[in-house]
């Protein structure tokens, strides 16, 4: 039953590959406008057609993949980088004021609709990829803090942790040397899911004009630009739309597949 993992892996690697290749090669300069050639449907010269400025859509999708992946990756990085230590600390001091503070803080962030707050952040601090990363990143913190704490709490009851305690290790050392490696599976799976949500959030922010600014291509903005042209040039919306769908689908399948593969309990049940 590795189908999910393989299909998800293939889709995700395709996107990743497109993003990586775009650093060294794209069929055309993604920013080069050629207005007489505008709104071409996909053809031999322009595989995905051209947009309303005559730019090559294939090149834009490739570079747009880079934007999406970079924003999502950094946002997940922020979420993990801050959320995981917070979750570990909360679990190590279960029931203490620190635990309460961290978890109620998380509740507070969770209570807000994430995209609305991301819009608020970018509206206040200015639109741009940097602020989009921070905005999406902030909403990843409680996700990782909770999942880390949840995983860590049960581990703290286990004998090998007891043994480490008896051996005189500090709770910080125990958290990083014993707890963290044992919740890594959870984090990888959650990270994949959050990554796909990050891509959606980036597309959403760009769609309302608060993500990466032109001329940096972004799938969300390509969709927004296409909006008034859907009726006569549907490929302008369909192509970035499919790019987003396939990427998110790929990452979700991969996340599911990874969970099945990494989670020992599920593996035992199947066996």
């Amino acid at each position, binding site marked *: 039953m590795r189908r999910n993992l393989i299909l998800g892996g293939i889709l995700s690697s395709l996107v990743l590959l497109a993003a990586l290749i775009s650093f060294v090669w794209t069929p055309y300069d993604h*920013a*080069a*406008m050629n*207005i*007489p050639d*505008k709104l071409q449907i996909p053809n031999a010269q322009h595989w995905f057609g051209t947009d*309303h*400025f*005559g730019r090559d859509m294939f090149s834009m999708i490739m570079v747009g993949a880079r934007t999406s992946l970079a924003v999502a990756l950094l946002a997940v990085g922020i979420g993990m980088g801050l959320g995981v230590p917070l979750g570990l600390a909360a679990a190590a001091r279960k029931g203490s004021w620190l635990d309460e503070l961290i978890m109620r803080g998380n509740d507070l962030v969770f209570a807000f609709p994430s995209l609305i707050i991301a819009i608020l952040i970018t509206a206040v601090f200015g*639109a741009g990829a940097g602020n989009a990363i921070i905005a999406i990143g902030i909403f990843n913190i409680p996700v990782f803090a909770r999942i880390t704490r949840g995983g860590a709490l049960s581990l703290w009851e286990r004998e090998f942790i007891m043994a480490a305690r008896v051996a005189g290790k500090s709770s910080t050392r125990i958290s990083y040397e014993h707890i963290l490696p044992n919740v890594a599976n959870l984090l990888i799976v959650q990270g994949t899911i959050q990554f796909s949500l990050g891509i959606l959030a980036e597309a959403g922010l760009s769609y309302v*004009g608060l993500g990466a*600014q*032109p*001329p940096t291509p972004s799938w969300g903005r390509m969709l927004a630009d296409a*909006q*008034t*042209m859907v*009726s*006569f040039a549907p490929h302008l919306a369909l192509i970035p739309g499919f790019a987003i769908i396939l990427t998110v689908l790929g990452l979700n399948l991969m996340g599911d597949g990874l969970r099945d593969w990494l989670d020992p309990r599920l593996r035992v049940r199947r066996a």
Partner: protein
Amino acid sequence: MTHLQTRRRVGPALAICASMIAGQALAQDDIIVAMQLEPPHLDPTSAAAGAIDSVLYSNVFEGLTRFMGDGSVVPGLAKTWDISEDGLTYTFHLQDGVTFHDGTVMDAADVKFTLDRARAEDSVNAQKALFAGITDVMVVDPLTVKVTLDKPNGSFLFNMAWGDAVIVAPDSIDDIKQKPVGTGAFKFVEWSAGDKIVIEKNPDYWGTPAILDKATFKFISDPTAAFAAVMAEDVDVFSGFPAPENLPQFEADPRFQVLVGSTEGETILSANNKQAPFDNVKVRQAVAHAIDRQAIIDGAMFGYGTPIGTHFAPHNPAYVDLTGNSAFDPEMSKKLLAEAGLADGFETTLHLPPPSYARRGGEIIAAQLAQVGIKAEIINVEWAQWLETVFRGKNFGLTIVSHTEPMDIGIYARPEYYFQYDNPAFQELMTTLTATTDPDQRTALLKEAQTTIANDYVNGYLFQLAALSVAKAGVQGLWTNAPTQATDLTAVSWDK
């Protein structure tokens, strides 16, 4: 059972008949006009917002003179006028029997009130300059008013046609922002904020009565929603259609007619003339030569728009075609940058307000500037932010905006105006122009003014904004051109 079935069949059939009759009756005497922007309030004499005039000009409010759809200025509430030999005194003879919508009589006292209010020290009129030369307004008799100027003003009658100079009454001035009372062929009925404004025929109108009984203005800001509303025939007219890319579809559809005319909107790439490096004329010239106007018109406006080479409307008889002065020539542009000591280019900002001429045009311009080494960082802003940062704060490098006021070349004589062009010779020229009444001399001066700003490359002159409207095929009498911001419905009717 049979009984019931019969009723079931007849019921809908009757309903259809009824709606057909109602539909036809409605189609003849009322109209739904959509536009993008909703007015902030309804007093045209105390705000710069063009949306106010778009709803009320000519329909509800009238001035001493008025604009026609072709841009000409004709008598309005003033039937005739005499101008003294020295050009300093205008004696207006008002139309007889004009009443405001609240029933009060419009007479010379109202004219005096309006003009005195507009030129007062504490006036909040957005175009105080229109009234600046007035030294005295005197009521001669109820139908005659004498206006004295400090010096001859060749455009005084033109000025009095503006929406900012419409005649208002002292009795109704307090509530004018919510409940406008004018003299027009339509009277205001209701305003549901965020949705619509309704006006209806004024049965006591002094002039040619309106043909329509009722008109509803709807406000649809989103271009996609605008397209859907017209396609679904939810609105009868969309005045100032925001998405030029959709017009070919309307043109191909027999249900609709597309009106393409000209506006007074000079769409320009404004440069901050006081900020380095744009304080150097060579740099501004380099920017001008880096721009391919046709690409912008085709790419941003889908072909709608007329290239301009100076800040003047091409349909005006005094227009000089100076587009050759700043022809697309990237090599020339690079050379000029090198001469200015910026051979490696430079970085600047490009503030873009929401309309597609700015957002799309800006993307194209940024790409064109990049070709000559100028890196313009695009900053998309909302209108409020644009007014704050660019217009008032003057904190920008480049910006794109359409200057929609008619005959507004005079803004180049205001050194504090946001692009901060400070040329005493030009200011002198404008002073002379204002004092000149001879038409030939005025034309010559206007031509000189156009050439001066084009040679100084004050701003990048892009194109004259097209007036784009879509209407159902049966609608007649709409303005094609937009000599001022107005949706004059007084002559509009339905075919058949």
